[in-house]
């Protein structure tokens, strides 16, 4: 095990390639793991043969932890998210959530996508009630639960609005309320704020942190925005491209709620950026010079196999 003390106080950096999966970090291992990913690999077929999008991914997320997966475009982070959600199958390896092996989508792991995916035929509150209705909860009770979570995202005023009347940020907040109303053990967030403007994102970072501190849900958050990851996460995994592997792991122990513009957040982001730079260079090189690129073969079209995933990509 390799423990490297970082320049900034409260930050631990781990070189993941040399870390055993059963690592012992003092103080973090007392809580039981909520999500366990073991040797997960996934490849897609391309004209040059099969290409690994994910290769031997191993990690655990503990109950109540906020974890961010960061990586450049096409590193397979959305694929990994889909595998955890049960929307896609891994070629090999296994995912355990709450002690049960993941074999399909389940209400214990609700996904929040890049686009809010609210249903336009339902108004705001009916959208929040959607999952509760499927669970068979009676109409009065589900209305109460829905109102409670709409209140949490400060949108009670808009409960009877149509979806198209909301702004992008409001839609995403309704999506968060809808996911929380299911009372899942885990929230899976797939670049939920990447389509929003900086201002809205800034507000939502506070809101999400507050919600997380209130509900203590386990959150797995995928992003390509490093500062966002530092602002939100307890722990950050950096994924490499082609094949997608976990390259580094960072612990962020800054006080909450954190601000994107906080000097520590900024400083720390810069350090992670350096780690990622090699990876980004690789992607850029591929995209600029697709013909002669030997390092990857579908990378430049890595998003192509995932035709079904609207929420994917950057």
């Amino acid at each position, binding site marked *: 095990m390799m423990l490297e003390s970082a320049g900034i106080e409260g930050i631990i950096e781990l070189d993941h390639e040399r870390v055993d999966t059963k690592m012992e970090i003092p103080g973090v291992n007392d809580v039981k793991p909520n999500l366990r990913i073991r040797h997960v690999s996934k490849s897609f077929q391309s004209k040059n043969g099969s290409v690994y999008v994910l290769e031997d991914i191993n990690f655990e997320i503990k109950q109540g932890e906020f974890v961010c997966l960061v990586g450049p475009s096409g590193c397979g982070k959305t694929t990994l998210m889909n595998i955890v*959600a*049960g*929307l896609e199958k891994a070629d090999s390896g296994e995912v355990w959530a709450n002690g049960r092996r993941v074999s399909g*989508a*389940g*209400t214990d*792991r*609700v*996904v929040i*996508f890049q*686009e809010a*995916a609210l*249903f*336009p*035929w*339902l108004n705001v509150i009916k959208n929040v009630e*959607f*999952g509760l*209705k*499927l*669970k068979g909860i009676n109409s009065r009770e589900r209305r109460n639960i829905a109102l409670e979570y709409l209140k949490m995202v400060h949108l009670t005023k808009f409960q009877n609005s*149509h*979806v*198209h*009347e909301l702004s992008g940020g409001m839609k995403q907040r309704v999506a968060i309320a*809808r*996911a929380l109303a*299911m009372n899942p053990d885990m929230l*899976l967030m797939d670049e939920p704020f990447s389509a929003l403007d900086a201002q809205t994102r800034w507000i939502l970072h506070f809101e999400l942190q507050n919600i997380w501190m209130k509900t203590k849900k386990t959150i797995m958050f995928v992003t390509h925005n490093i500062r966002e990851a530092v602002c939100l996460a307890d722990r950050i995994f950096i994924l490499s491209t082609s094949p997608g592997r976990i390259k580094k792991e960072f612990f962020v122990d800054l006080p909450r709620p954190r601000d994107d513009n906080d000097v520590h957040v900024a400083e720390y982001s810069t350090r992670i950026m350096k780690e990622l730079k090699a990876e980004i260079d690789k992607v850029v090189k591929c995209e600029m010079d697709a013909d002669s690129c030997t390092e990857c073969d579908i990378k430049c079209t890595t998003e192509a196999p995932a035709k*079904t*995933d*609207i*929420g994917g990509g950057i």
Partner: protein
Amino acid sequence: MYSILKRVIFFVLLITLWEMLFWWGIWPEYILPSPVSVCKTLARGFRDQSLLIGIAISMKRIAIGYGISIGAGIFLGLLIGRFRIFEETLGSLISGLQTLPTICWLPLALLWFGLNDRAIIFLVFMGAVLSITIATDAGVKSVPSLYIRAAKTMGAKGLKLYLEVIIPAALPHIIIGMKQGWSFAWRSLMAGELLIVCLGLGHLLMIGRELNDMSQVIAVMLVIILIGILVDRLFFMKVERHMRERWGLVKS
């Protein structure tokens, strides 16, 4: 308001022209009756209830035929839209049959069902079902996979996925198909009633022809137009407007 005024003036002028043509007496009355006698025939038809009975019988037939075709059309459309095997087999059959004018089913209907109500209901059904099937298929295929994935992570599967997500998401397409299906069904109904003698509005048209009573022919035609407009205004326009507002398809 202004457009309504223009419309009223247009129709008043049209009826005046018609009345003038009648008064000139270029054509005999059994070819061109006066608007007044058409109105009288209409009033008489409602008074002696012959028109009302005709309307009731025709509406009953279309309600049954069209009702069945909505259920069957949505079901078939879902099958074709969701399952590759049905798309490759049933889908090609449906699009082939769509090119066949509905009235061509009449000989078959007569042999299968005889000269009765059921033959006409079958024609109505055949008129609407294909449009609804094709529109539902298109609607199902256009449902964003994001909705389906989001619903799955919230526990939607099997029949509930269809009832709570796929059908509502495809509804704008289904409504368009239903509207087109309605107009085909209405045409098929009239064609069937003209050719099979068993009451209904189409039959009243034929009686008018047999009695050389042109004013009855025109009166019944007016009723048929009116019903078509009423169904369109009272049902489809309202549903479409509601849908547009809800989905935010058009800024009103």
